[in-house]
Every structure is written in structure tokens, then in C-alpha cells.
């Protein structure tokens, strides 16, 4: 029983922390025969511009569109879901990190003082939990590859009619009309048939 308690607690913690490792990975879409249609809030022009010097995709919005966009966004229900609220607090992530630091430190001290086998097993469990926790915090911190890497497959995807995901900075322009999408083209991959 004495051995069971730390092992059971450790297992519980590892299982609980597994939820957070999904932090920045999009959940697999639920199979739905009738996907919900999006609600158009603004109709405007969009220009896609390849930028060989850029590192991040940028969406430039003209001031005239910005006003319409603001009004459109104001009418949309902006209440975040509970899950979004859970994973969007930097303060809580920092405090979680501080507690994780304490946990690892004390586990280390305890491991150093302990010479019994079962204690070492329990300490290994705590250390494993700490590792998983640290990994989940990195995932929460939005760490990821540079924007150019994510956009590199855009030409081929456009040719094949597939979608491409990547980061986007939204910029408000002082003048102009419509929206302009600037995509970093530095690392664009050549289509397969050209590479051969």
C-alpha cells in the first residue's frame, strides 16, 4: 500500500497532464454529415502577394474595411469557450511553471536523500510528471517553426486545390482599399513534377 500511494498519485498526474499536451494541436474534426456553415460578416477584396523577403504571412487591412470589420466583429458572440479560457492565461502558466520548478527541485532533494529503491521509483514517477508538465507548458507557449516553414507548401497546395495552414499577422494600414495577404515565399517548395 505504501508503494501504491505515490505510484497511483503519479499515474493520476501523468494522465491528467496528458490533456495539456494537446494544447496547440488542433483536435481532430468531429465527423459531421452536415458541417455548420460560416456566417459572412464582411465582403471585400483580397490580394495574395508572394514576399520573398518576409518571414511571416501578413494580412493588411485598409482603414475603410477596418471600420466595417469592427462593426461586424462587435455583432459576433465573442464569449470564449471554457476550453479556450482554460488555455489562455499567461499568469496561470507562469504560476504553474513555478510550482513545477518547486516540484522538480524537491523531488531532486528527496531523491538525493533517499537510498531506498521504492523511493527512487516514486521519484522517477514525479520526474516523469515534471517532464510531461514542462512539455505541456512548451506546447501552451506557442513554440513552433518559423512562418516561412509553414507556408512553404502553399504553391503546391494551390495547384492541388488543398488548404495550407500557417501563422498570420493582421496589420491595419493607414490607407488603401480592401485586404492584402502577403505570404512569405522565401522557402516555397517547388511542385513535385518540377523537382524531378
Amino acid at each position, binding site marked *: 500500500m505504501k508503494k501504491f500511494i*505515490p505510484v497511483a498519485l503519479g499515474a493520476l498526474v501523468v494522465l491528467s497532464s496528458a490533456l495539456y499536451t494537446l494544447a496547440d494541436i488542433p483536435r481532430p474534426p468531429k465527423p459531421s454529415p452536415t458541417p455548420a456553415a460560416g456566417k459572412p460578416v464582411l465582403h471585400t477584396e483580397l490580394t495574395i502577394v508572394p514576399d520573398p523577403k518576409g518571414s511571416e504571412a501578413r494580412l493588411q487591412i485598409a482603414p475603410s474595411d477596418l471600420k466595417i470589420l469592427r462593426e461586424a466583429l462587435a455583432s459576433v458572440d465573442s464569449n470564449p469557450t471554457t476550453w479556450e479560457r*482554460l488555455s489562455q492565461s499567461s499568469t*496561470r502558466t507562469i504560476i*504553474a511553471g513555478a*510550482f513545477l520548478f*518547486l*516540484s522538480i527541485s524537491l523531488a531532486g532533494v528527496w531523491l538525493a536523500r533517499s537510498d531506498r529503491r521504492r*523511493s527512487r521509483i516514486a521519484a522517477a514517477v514525479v520526474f516523469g510528471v515534471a517532464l510531461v508538465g514542462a512539455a505541456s507548458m512548451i506546447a501552451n507557449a506557442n513554440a513552433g517553426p518559423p512562418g516561412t516553414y509553414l507556408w512553404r507548401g502553399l504553391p503546391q497546395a494551390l495547384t492541388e486545390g488543398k488548404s495550407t495552414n500557417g501563422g498570420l499577422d493582421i496589420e491595419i494600414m493607414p490607407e488603401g482599399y480592401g485586404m492584402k495577404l502577403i505570404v512569405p515565399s522565401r522557402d516555397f517548395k517547388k511542385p513535385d513534377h518540377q523537382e524531378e
Partner: protein
Amino acid sequence: MERTANLGLVQWQRSRVQTRRSVGSFALLLVVGVLLSATLATSIPLQFSIVTLFLFAGPHNWFELRYFLMRLPLRFGRSRNFFLTAFTGIALLTIAYLSLPLLYYAGVWTGHNWPTAIATWNTLLLLWLGLLISLRGKQGRRNWTWCWPVVFALSSLNWLGPELFSLALVYAHPLVALWFLDRHLRRNRPEWLQSYRRCLLMLPLIVAAMCWRLLGSQSLADDNGLAWRITQHAGADLLPQLSTHLLVTVHVFLETLHYGVWLLALPLIASRGSIWKVKSIPLARHARGFPRLIGATLIGGLFVVALLWLGFSTNYAVTRDVYFAVAIAHVLAEAPFLLRML
């Protein structure tokens, strides 16, 4: 000489048969009880939740109160620091827990940083538990310092998802009763312990079967206030990807086991005399004890149970909310008494 030896052998064989029978009856009762509650929780989760809470919530708290009084020593002695920490923690954590909704409804607090408030309360709870484990370890001259890394690791997880952590406590609390029962069987009925632990293996299987059957099921209709409260309590808002049918079923199933342990199993195994006799409680029986105070406490508890039934009959939804807020005290009180059993 040979005849005397044969008589001893016969008696031993008889007692062995009786033990086998009692173990078999206990295991059968457990299996039937668990399967029955699982079936009812799966087929009529909302109705079963309403009925079990109405019938058993108050009485199980009264039995817990009586149990805690039974286990309370007359003089704290070496356990003084342990009990002082326990009672102070129970009082402060309960007040803090109750003050959150009170401040919100009084309009003093907008509730915009609700997750932070919950995370802070959960952290205080974990630190209190860590302190209790540490003190108990010192009493028994055991090295229980492993608890601190665990407490801080759990605190870390709590700050990442405070509401999910609270939900985990809601689901974990009913299981504590099973731990109490395990300790008492070990002490009072060791011959039943093996069967009990084997029966416990059914629980993950039953929960897995519930998940398998209800994972893709349609969520329960929570179009009225009471059904909405029940689904929210089971985590409908926090786990929107899961069917509320599954969540409510698992929660009600575990709660029913919790009630079963406190109302049936523990009184049968751990009682030392009639439950109505105040003198069966050491605090009341001892020459320097407090028989009147203990008697008044138990009678007062019965009045509270009756009041709770009246409240459920008059306005079930509001009484349910009030009950689950106040019931945090009994959740907290279980921790020190369980630690005393270890």
C-alpha cells in the same frame, strides 16, 4: 485424546466454512450492489441522480459525522498539531469556498477571475493536504516527504486548468470512501479484504463499459434548471466533447458507491454497538468525555437531515446548490481521518 483432536478439527472446519460463506455473501452483495447502481445510472441517470441525492445525501453526512466522532480521541496528545492543522484547514477552506459564490451573488465580486480564485483555493487545499501528510508521517516516524513534490506537481497542473482540476476532485471524492472501507476491512474483517479488492477491479471495467456504450450517445436534455445543474456538476461545460449522458452516469454511479459505503458497509463493519447509542462513542463513554455535547450534536445532525429533506421537497434545485456548497466541509474532513487510518 484423539476425540478431543477431532472436535478441534471439526470446529476449525465449521469456522472455515462459515468464513467462506460470509466472504461469499459479502462479495455477492458487493457485485449485485455495484451492478445494480451501474444499470440504474446508465439507464436513468438524471432521475437516479435526483432520487439518490434526495434519499442519501443527508443521512450519509450524518453517518460520516458519527464516524468522525467515533474516531476522535478524547485527548489529542501527540496528535495535537495534526488535529489543530486539520480543523483549522477545514474551517478556513470551507469559509473560503463558501465565500466565493456569496461574494459573487452579493455583487461584491464580478467573478471575472473565477479560474484564478479556484486555482488559489485548490492550491491551498493541496498545501493543507501536504502539511497533514507530512505531520502524520512524522507521528508514525515514516518518511512521507515524497508528498511535497507530488503536491507541487499537482498544484502546477491545477494552475494550468483549475476548473478541470476541481472537476477531477468531484470525481475522485467518492473513491475516498472505498479507501476508508479498505482500511476498515483490513482491521476488522481481514478475511473479506481479498474479495473486496478483487471486486474493486470491476470498477474500471464498469466505467470503461459505460464509456464504450455512452461515448457517442446523445447528450441528456438539460432544458430545465435542475437537469442543467446536474449536467454542469458532472462537467458538461468543461468537457463539451463528451456526452452529458456519459458524464452524469459515471458521476452518479460513483456517488452511489460513496453513499453505499457510508450508509451500509462502514456501519456494518466498523460499528461497535447500536448506532443510536451515544455511549458507543468513546468521546461520550469516557469519564472525562462529553456525552451531552455528542448527543446534542447527533440530534442536531438529524434535524439538519430532516431540514435537507424538507428543502429538497420544497425547492430541489436551490437546495441541491446549497448542499453541494456546504458539503465541501465533509469532503475536507475525510482527509485527516483517512490519514489517521494509514
